[in-house]
């Protein structure tokens, strides 16, 4: 079932000035309820403009955004409700914390939705648990937290609104490998348990390869590809032409395939590659006893 759909979605900046630029150009895509969609595209490809239109932060200059079949701009006064249903976590969200305590900060969204203090608090505590934020941190000032903890608090603030669609823009930028793994695992877990739709924008093909079911590739304001992750990553050359690349491990698998090794060219993880390569190399190469 489709939850969010765009029809000929277009955004033009600076119309009528010499700086006129079409950032998003006639994009028609449909997001299935409960799917995990990855979005890739190099800087200037239009992905940020696109996601800002999905929850009504930008009003399209052409086309439509339909949330469960309804144009989100049908009643502009109700656009706030759309922002509760399509939750957005921006890049470096930790700079947006502002309340006295972490708990109050996470409760801000649910309270704006009109929930009671008690309900908002419950939502906040659940959201904090989802992002791995320790309960004892909730009464602290957000500014006493470490960078990674602040990031979790900011994400919890959006999750607490229980949005039907959760949009995350580069949630792991600047985190160390371990922090990246843990946060991605938590997002995946959240997605699995809640069954909400997740849209993850990332420059890390490795992260995208491990998490997303389908992939949207933005290029020059257009939706250049929208297909299962494996299918997109099997088109290495096309992606490189768009300033993107495939995960390292996928590249290795594709090169091995070109040498005649029977390995799936859309291999996405090291584990996946090992399952295929260990038996193959054991047949082909001398094996040492371990």
């Amino acid at each position, binding site marked *: 079932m489709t939850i969010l759909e765009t029809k000929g979605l277009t955004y033009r900046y600076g119309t009528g000035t010499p700086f006129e630029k079409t950032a998003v150009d006639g994009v028609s895509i449909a997001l299935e309820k409960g799917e995990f969609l990855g979005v890739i595209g190099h800087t200037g490809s239009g992905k940020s403009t696109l996601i800002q239109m999905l929850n009504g932060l930008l009003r399209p200059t052409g086309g439509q955004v339909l949330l469960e079949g309804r144009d989100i701009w049908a009643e502009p006064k109700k656009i706030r409700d759309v922002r509760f249903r399509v939750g957005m976590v921006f890049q470096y969200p930790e700079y947006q914390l502002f309340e006295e305590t972490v708990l109050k900060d996470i409760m801000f969204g649910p309270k704006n939705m009109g929930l009671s203090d008690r309900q908002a608090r419950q939502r906040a505590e659940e959201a904090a648990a989802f992002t791995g934020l320790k309960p004892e941190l909730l009464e602290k000032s957000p500014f006493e937290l470490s960078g*990674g903890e602040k990031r979790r608090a900011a994400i919890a603030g959006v999750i607490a609104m229980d949005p039907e669609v959760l949009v995350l823009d580069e949630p792991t930028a600047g985190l160390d490998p371990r922090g990246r793994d843990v946060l991605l695992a938590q997002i995946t877990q959240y997605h699995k348990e809640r069954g909400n739709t997740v849209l993850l924008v990332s420059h890390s093909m490795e992260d995208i390869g491990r998490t997303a079911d389908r992939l949207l590739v933005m290029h020059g304001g257009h939706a250049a590809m929208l297909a299962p992750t494996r299918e997109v990553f099997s088109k290495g050359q096309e992606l490189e032409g768009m300033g*993107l690349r495939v995960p390292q491990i996928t590249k*290795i698998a594709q090169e091995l395939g070109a040498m005649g090794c029977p390995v799936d060219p859309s291999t996405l993880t090291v584990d996946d590659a090992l399952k295929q*390569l260990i038996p193959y190399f*054991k047949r082909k190469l001398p094996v040492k006893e371990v």
Partner: protein
Amino acid sequence: MAFIDVRDVRFSYDLEAGVGQEVLHGVSLQIEQGEFVALLGHNGCGKSTMAKLLNGMLTPSAGQVVVDGLDAGKEENQLEVRRRVGLVLQNPDNQLVAGIVEEDVAFGPENLGVPPEEIRRRVDAALKAVGMYPYREHAPHKLSGGQKQRVAIAGVIAMETKCLVLDEPTAMLDPRGRQEVMEAITRLNREKGITVVLITHYMDEAVQAGRVVVMDGGRVLMDGGPGEVFKQVERLKRHDLDVPQATELCYRLRAAGVELPGIPLSVEECVGMFRELLG
């Protein structure tokens, strides 16, 4: 003597009056002129503090940082140390000050009192060195992230610094931007002999360095060539770090008993090795 000599340095941040939190517990590190060093470690291990100590933005609580024979902790040396060691930070939008690219690059040398004709020469040379000369008359805010970072690097080079310290310069960039910045850095190191200290979370960037230093808990944990450091896959993982996927693949193939001649660090090396093996 080494170009940069970090001697048993400790550093504490003041949480409140009289209460400090020590983040570096006695770090010693020597970096020679012309080296390309990657500095790795998880968030909070003290890497960024190290970067700021190297150009005198922070002063050690104990121990010494000596740059080109100058004690970086002494206030009277501050200007001289910053002429030698330039810092490039993570967010490209926070580092550009002027409305036109070449004016931004001229900002540093102007502040040093360099004569105008010399500034012109340095700005052109710096922009060419990072491949941004064609954009010299553009507005910085209209550039891509990778281009902005290269302008920030040019701004440092124009001060004729001998050493470039970069604190996660590619964290906010897309794959193309990351590649552009990495190419600019390696070229400056190779062709101009500029010493590079690169702090990064990307292992595929670290393997391009000549030397890899791993920090953990405010101490130096490992220090060696990339081949030497990255073959210690388990140890790195124990310290919350990672290895490139190519390295992990071959390491685990070996662990499963497949006899491989080496542990490659990059996709190219890995593919080359497989090609030879499979003939």
